[in-house]
């Protein structure tokens, strides 16, 4: 972290964002460290972290699945998409699986409404999903992982 970022309190969110980008989440230790750097009470930093949905307090999986629950996706069946993923992966919204391979999260809107329903995996968007397509995508990631290890 650069010095000038620390000086200005309005950069707190920015610093937390770069921490999350680096580590994938905000750990307790990171909160304490950042609080010290900004000369703020820990509780105040924790308060900011818990306020914004972007900040995660648990390590994400290697593949982060985001299920879009924007209006367009919702009315076309994003609830079913989330259920199918929960069944397939054995994890609920907001959880990471035991192997740390997949994490699942429903988000407000990915902004690809014309492709509804959509999910994104590590930022790559998959659209116009049905159950078959969805399960194939997950299977492909598993295959890729098995081939790699």
């Amino acid at each position, binding site marked *: 972290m650069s010095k000038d970022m620390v000086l200005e309190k309005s950069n707190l969110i920015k610093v937390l964002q770069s921490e999350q980008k680096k580590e994938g989440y905000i750990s307790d230790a990171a909160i304490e460290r950042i609080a010290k750097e900004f000369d703020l009470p820990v509780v105040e930093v924790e308060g*900011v972290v818990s306020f914004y949905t972007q900040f995660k307090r648990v390590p994400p999986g290697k593949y982060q699945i985001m299920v879009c629950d924007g209006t367009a996706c919702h009315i076309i069946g994003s609830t079913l998409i989330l259920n199918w993923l929960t069944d397939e992966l054995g994890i609920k919204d907001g959880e990471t699986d035991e192997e740390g391979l997949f994490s699942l999260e429903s988000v407000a809107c990915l902004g690809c409404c014309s492709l509804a329903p959509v999910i994104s995996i590590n930022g790559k968007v998959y659209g116009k999903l049905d159950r078959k397509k969805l399960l194939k995508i997950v299977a492909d990631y598993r295959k890729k992982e098995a081939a790699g290890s």
Partner: protein
Amino acid sequence: MIKRIKVGMASCGIAAGAGEVLELLQEMAGDNKVVEVGCIGHCYAEPLVEVETDSGSYIYENVQAKEKDLQKLLEVEDFSRFQPHPPRVEKERELITSLAGKIVPTSLEEYRAHQGYDGLERAKEMEPEEIVEEVKKSKLRGRGGGGFPAGLKWSFLLAKESENKVLICNADEGDPGAFMDRTLMESLPHQVLEGMLIGAKATGARQLFIYCRAEYPLAVKNLNIAIEQIEKEGLNIIDGEPVEVKVKEGAGAFVCGEETALIHSLEGKRGTPRFRPPYPTDYGFHGYPSAINNVESFANIPLIVRDGGEKFAETGTENSTGTKLFALAGDLKYSGLVEVPMGISIGEVVYDIGGADPGSVKAVQIGGPSGGCIPAEHFDTPIDYDSLTSLGAIMGSGGLIVIGNNRCMVETARYFLEFTTRESCGKCTFCRIGTKRMLETLERITGGVGSPEDVELLGDLGQKIIHGSLCGLGQTAPNPVLSTLKYFNNEYLAHVEEGYCAAMECKALVDVFIDRDTCIECGQCIKNCPVDCISEDYVIDNEVCTRCNSCIEVCPVDAIARVAKGGEVSVGN
């Protein structure tokens, strides 16, 4: 001969596969120049590629990253040509988006070649009061949803004397289902910046912020490139001194669209709103007088200053001038971004531009979680601030979702309440607890245990939340419920009195049934059921079934369907 090839590389294009198309095209194009442009608004036809030749321009739709297809495209063959459907061409009025998808977003040169920064040059020759007067004459109203006159807001900031004044662009587009601001920032970052710099000249602000959703990485990237370019060219020098322009990324909180919450977030704090007055123009960012305008409002400013406020006011209606961008999605044929003159009817947008089938549409949802549902019988209503408000909806930022006959309106209302409950910052009791109680009540109704009193309770709670909340989030949160109560009361009553959801959407009110006459006993449903609730003789145990629709999706002969719980059974028709 090909002059150059343009690939639509806005977020929606990339999601549809434009990145792969671009990569392959660059390999295959040889000496032909391939460039990345923004979005022309026809999301349903993405990925879109435009081939500019000596004899005109040809747009190709649904382009796939296949060598065979791209070869045809490089030979400018007549295949998969994109033609916007005529009613849309006739009704659309592209004023602020006229350059979107046509120029390279991060090319200052190209923007300038199309009258870009002419408005700023003109503004630099004008007195601040003259610019404010011009904006007042245009009658431009805030495009973020509130509809406050932009010229008036600027006059407040201009009147302030302070060592520092701040102008903020609200780009925290949080409505699920809305992407107007994203498109503007991705495709026309210079136009947004030009509007802001004109604002700096008009109000005396010397510190400019763009508060952008972190979920819009491409918008942030393009804006930052554009800022670097204007700083290099000295376009940000107003009255002899450089104006500071910074992009600040939000961190995901819907309430930060509210101006006092946004300022708190800019200061690095929790984004909670505060009581007004003092208004931000009196006490804003770090106490300095600040004005906040929406992205789309800023994108309108260059046109107003360049062509004059009166000319601008010729488009639209008496009290709602200019055009409005809408993000069209839902149950319709042509989804995407569309710019229409204010005063156009809802029906024209839904049926003519969106290509929705008139028989199949039940309502539109305008304005996202703060807006309301307007039933099809009111589709002749003109789209302007006042008409929409009188129907119980709001203009909002411009999300317009078409809802088909096969959707449940109670569930739709529940969905929005779930969103606002989650996003309520918790400061005001009525918003924090009221929305939660409303959500629980709606869950009782969709869960099949609601009573007629619950329906009454919703109406009562709604009014109290509106009056007991400090900011726009709470004040508008009940709108989706109140508007559906008003126009679709029969659906609420069917749920609580007959336990019947006509759309077969509410899980607790449906069973899943296999029609043995149609069934071919292929075993797919049994194999795919995640809870093993289908017996070997193809009977579903509805006590165990989670209504996940897996069997319905895999059935090759459509023999399985949701049916009303305890009602008559009919499948497949």
